[in-house]
C-alpha cells in the first residue's frame, strides 16, 4: 500500500497543459447560439503522464481482491477472473448501441437469452429479467412484482411486509419505496426466523416475507419449508434475497424451496468485479405465476431469432435499456467456464472454507450462533476483559495485510464481525488470516495500545467522520 498522500487532480493542474488530442473540425464553423453558452468551465488541465501517475498512485492507496484477502461478509469478494474483462471488452459486443435494429444485435440478444436460461436453471425459476442494475434494484423490482400480483387479483388489503431482524437494510428500504409497511420479525436462538412470531403476524394483510437464506448470520434457515408454507397459506409471497446465493449453487434451488421471487447478485455469486462500489447487476427470477409481471424488456427466442419483449403485465422498466450488459458478459463467461459441476464445487468450497475458518477463529472470537455455517459466519469482535472493540480489531487487520470483515452487521449480534472467505481463497491464506486473528487477540491483552492506534501502515489513520458530517465538504473549492 502506498503510504503517502496524493494531491487532488485540481492541485496538479496547470493552465494550458493538455492530455487530449482531437481531430481537426473539418467542417465550416457556424454561429454558437447566443445567450445559451457558458462563460467558464474550470476542469483540471494536466498532461497524460500527470494523469497516469495520479490515478496509479490513487489505485495504490486501495486494498482490493487482486492485492489482499478481502473477507467482507455479505459481499462475496471472490476472485474476478481476468478472462471476464477480456470477454466484456470484445469489440463486437461492447461497441453496440442499445437502440440498434434487433437484426443487428442478434449476438448480444443471444447472450442475454442464454444467461436468463442459465439463471433460471441454477435457482429453479420459470422466468428471469436481467434488467435491474444491482441487488437493491432487483429487490425493489421484486417487491413491485409482488405488489402487481396482488393488485391483479384485486387483493388490495395487503399492506405489510414481514422482514426478519437480521435482514440487510435494503429490504425495509425497498419495501418502503413500494408503499408498504415493514413488520420486523425476531430471530430465534438458533438464528432462524421465529416461527411463532411469524404465525402471529400471518393474516390477509400480509404482502409477503423477505427471506435471506442463508441469512446474514451465514445460517441456513432450518424451517425454510414451513416458513414458506405458512406465508403461502395466508396468501402472501416469499421474496428471496439472493445476496447469499454463493452458498447454494448446485446445493439447492430457491425456487424448489418455495421462494416466489429472488434477485441474483451477478457481482457476488458470478464473479464480476465490484468496481469500488459497482456496477453490480441484480436480475430477478420468478415462478410461473409471477412471470407476466417481470420488468423488461427481456430477451426471447422464436423462429426468426432473438428479440426483446415486455411481459404482458410488466411492472415496467426499472432502468433505461436492458440492464448492466457488460456485467452479463462477465457472468455468462464465468458460468460457462465453471459448468454445473464447477458451480456446485464453488458453493461447496465456499462453505468448507467458511467452516474451516470459523473453527480456527472461534476460539479467540466466539461465533454468535454455534452451528454449521454456510458461506460466512459472524463472530463477536470485541475482546472481553479488555477495552478492545470490533473497530480496533478491524483496523489492526489492515496492518497485518488483510481487508477487514464487515463490522457491526448484522445488527442483532453485538460487536459483529462478519467473515466471508469465499471459495477462491487457499487454505494457506485462511491459515494466515487465522494466525493474524490469534495475534490480535493476544495483543488485546498484552499491547492494547497498538490496536487502539491501528492502522499504522496506511496513508491516513482513523478519519474524523463526525467532522465530515458536521461540516460537509463535498467538493473541491479551490
Amino acid at each position, binding site marked *: 500500500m502506498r503510504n503517502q*498522500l*496524493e494531491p*487532488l487532480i485540481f492541485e496538479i493542474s496547470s493552465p494550458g497543459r*493538455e*492530455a487530449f488530442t482531437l481531430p481537426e473540425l473539418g467542417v465550416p464553423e*457556424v454561429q*454558437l447560439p447566443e445567450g*445559451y*453558452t*457558458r462563460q467558464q*468551465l474550470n*476542469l483540471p488541465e*494536466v498532461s497524460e503522464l500527470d494523469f*497516469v501517475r495520479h*490515478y496509479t498512485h*490513487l489505485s495504490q492507496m*486501495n*486494498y482490493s481482491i487482486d492485492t489482499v484477502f478481502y473477507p467482507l461478509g455479505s459481499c462475496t469478494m471472490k476472485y474476478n*477472473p481476468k478472462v471476464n474483462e477480456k*470477454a466484456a471488452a470484445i469489440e463486437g459486443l461492447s461497441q453496440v448501441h442499445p*437502440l440498434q435494429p434487433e437484426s443487428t*444485435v442478434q449476438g448480444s440478444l443471444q447472450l442475454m437469452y442464454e444467461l436468463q436460461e442459465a439463471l433460471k436453471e441454477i435457482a429453479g425459476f420459470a422466468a428471469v429479467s436481467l434488467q435491474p442494475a444491482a441487488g437493491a434494484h432487483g429487490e425493489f423490482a421484486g417487491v*413491485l412484482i409482488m405488489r402487481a400480483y396482488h393488485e391483479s387479483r384485486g387483493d388490495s388489503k395487503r399492506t405489510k411486509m414481514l422482514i426478519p431482524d437480521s435482514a*440487510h*437494510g*435494503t429490504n*425495509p*428500504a425497498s419495501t*418502503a419505496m413500494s408503499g408498504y409497511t415493514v413488520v420486523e420479525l425476531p430471530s430465534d436462538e438458533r438464528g432462524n426466523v421465529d416461527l411463532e412470531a411469524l404465525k402471529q403476524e400471518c393474516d390477509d394483510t400480509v404482502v409477503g416475507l423477505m427471506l435471506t437464506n442463508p441469512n446474514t448470520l451465514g*445460517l441456513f434457515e432450518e424451517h425454510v419449508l414451513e416458513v414458506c408454507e405458512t406465508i403461502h397459506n395466508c396468501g402472501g409471497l416469499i421474496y428471496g434475497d439472493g445476496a447469499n446465493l454463493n452458498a447454494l449453487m448446485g*446445493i439447492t*434451488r430457491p425456487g*424448489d424451496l418455495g421462494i416466489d421471487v429472488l434477485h441474483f447478485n451477478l457481482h457476488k455469486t458470478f464473479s464480476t*468485479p465490484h*468496481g*469500488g*462500489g459497482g456496477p453490480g447487476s441484480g436480475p430477478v427470477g420468478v415462478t410461473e405465476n409471477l412471470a407476466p409481471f417481470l420488468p423488461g424488456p427481456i430477451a426471447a427466442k422464436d423462429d426468426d431469432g432473438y428479440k426483446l419483449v415486455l411481459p404482458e403485465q410488466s411492472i*415496467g422498466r426499472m432502468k*433505461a435499456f436492458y440492464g448492466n450488459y457488460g*456485467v452479463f458478459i462477465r457472468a455468462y*463467461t464465468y458460468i460457462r*467456464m*465453471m459448468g*454445473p459441476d*464447477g458451480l456446485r464445487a464453488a458453493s461447496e468450497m465456499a*462453505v*468448507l*472454507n467458511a467452516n*474451516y475458518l470459523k473453527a480456527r477463529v472461534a476460539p479467540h472470537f466466539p461465533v454468535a450462533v454455534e452451528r454449521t455455517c454456510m458461506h460466512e459466519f459472524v463472530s463477536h469482535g470485541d475482546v472481553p476483559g479488555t477495552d478492545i472493540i470490533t473497530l480496533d480489531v478491524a483496523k489492526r487487520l*489492515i496492518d497485518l495485510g488483510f481487508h477487514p470483515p464487515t463490522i457491526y452487521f448484522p445488527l442483532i449480534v453485538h460487536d459483529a464481525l462478519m467473515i466471508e472467505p469465499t*471459495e*477462491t481463497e487457499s487454505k494457506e491464506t485462511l491459515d494466515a488470516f487465522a494466525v493474524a486473528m490469534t495475534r490480535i487477540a493476544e495483543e488485546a491483552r498484552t499491547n492494547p495500545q497498538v490496536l487502539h492506534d491501528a492502522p499504522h501502515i496506511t496513508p*491516513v*489513520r*482513523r478519519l474524523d467522520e463526525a467532522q465530515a*458530517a458536521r461540516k*460537509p465538504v*463535498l*467538493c*473541491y473549492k479551490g
Partner: protein
Amino acid sequence: MSPYLPQTENDRRTMLETIGLSSVEELFEDVPEQHRFPTLNLPGAVSEMEILNELYGMALKNSSTGCYATFLGAGAYNHFVPSAVPAMASRGEFLTAYTPYQPEVSQGTLQAAFEYQSMIAELTGMEVVNASHYDGATSMAEAAIMSHNVGRGKRNKIIVSPRVDPQYRQVMRTYLPAGQLLITGDEDLNAGLGDLKAMLDGETACLIVQNPDFFGQLLDVDGLAEAVHEVGALLVVVANPIHSLGLLKPPGEYGADIVVAEGQPLGAGLNFGGPYLGVFAATMKHVRKMPGRLVGETVDVDGARGFVLTLAPREQHIRREKATSNICTNQGLIALIAGMYLAYMGKGGMQNVAEICYHRAHYAAAGIDKLDRYQVISSGHFFNEFVVQCPKPVDEINQALLEEGILGGYDLQLDYPEAVNQMLVCVTEMNDRMQIDRLIQVLGQIG
C-alpha cells in the same frame, strides 16, 4: 478442478478434519433432503479458449459501431474514449475493491470519487453531487422522490415534460406506482414549456425538463426557475447529452435545484445499454434529502487530509425503511471512469469536443435539409441531435443505410405517434466530414 478453486484433495481432508466432519456433503444437512443437490441442466465446463471463441462467434452476429458509421443517439452516445482512461480504470486495485467502508484502505476510491463529485459539480453548475446512480433514468426517478421528500411529502404532483426521454418517464412511473404520486404534464405530447408552467401550483413537488430535450432542441429557460420557485416547487433538469455542458450554460446557472444526466458518454462506451452512470447533482440546501452515497473531506488523527463516506444517516444501512432511497451498490467504476475522462479531457478537451459535435451536427443538418425529399424540422437551436422529416418510414431508411455501412438515427414514431417518418439524427466527434457526406449522399439516393 476449476482454476478458481485452490483446495487440493489434501487441503479438503485436513480442513474437514479440523471441522470434525468426514465429507463435504455433511456441511449441508440443514438443507431439506428432498431438495438437496439437484442436477443442474447446464452445458459442461469449457476452457478459456473455448468460451472466448463462443463469444467471438456471438460478436460476429452483431453489427458494431466500430464497423458502421453511427448516427444513433437518443440517450446513449458514441464518443471517443482516450486509451489512458480504460488503462487506468482497469487497474485491479480499483476494479476489485468494493464500497469504501474502511476509509484507511480505500483512499484511492474515495479521493477519485471526491474528484468526480467536484468535476461534475463544475460541469453542471451545482453544489453537491453524489457518488452515482444506476443510470440517467433512475437518477431522474430518484429526483422525483427527493422532490416529494423536500416538500415534506405534502406536494404530490410531479410535472414532467413530454420532451423528456420516454424511457426516463417510463422508469419514473415504475418507481412511483399509481396512487402514490400524480405524474402529469406529458399526457399531451405537444405540451410546451408554457403549458407546463401553467400547471404549476401549491401541490407541485417539481417540474422536470430535459435540456437539450429528447428532440435535441435547446430550451428557452428564461424565467423558468422563477416560475417553479414561486409555487415552492423544485426545478429538475435532465442534462442530456452531457457533452452539451462543454458548451452550454450549466443548469445551476439558470436555477435548477436538481440536475440529473446520463454519464455514459464520459468514457464508458455503449455496451448495449449498460453499465451506464446516473449523474445526480443538487444544491447544498437539500443535501440531507439526497439519495445515494456522498464522499466528503475530513482529517485523520494526525490532522492529515482524507476522505470518507459521509452523511450516511440518509442511507438504507443506517435508516432502513426511513432511508432517502434503497440504493446500496451503485455504479462506482463508471463514476471513476467519468471522473478520469473529465480529468483527461480537462477544460480544453470538453469545450473542444462539444464544439466539434455542435459544428458537425449543424453541417450534417444543413446538408440533409438541402436534399429534395428530406427536411430538418428542428426549430430553434440544437446541440448535436436534430429531427429529420423523411420521405418514408424510418425503419425502411435505416435498413437501406445499413446496407451502405451506416447505422441511422432513432425512429421517433416509436414513442411519439404523430412523429410519422421522423428520424432523430445524432452527430458526435466520431463522425468526420467523410461519414457525414456519405450519409447525405446515401439518404439522397434512398429518397
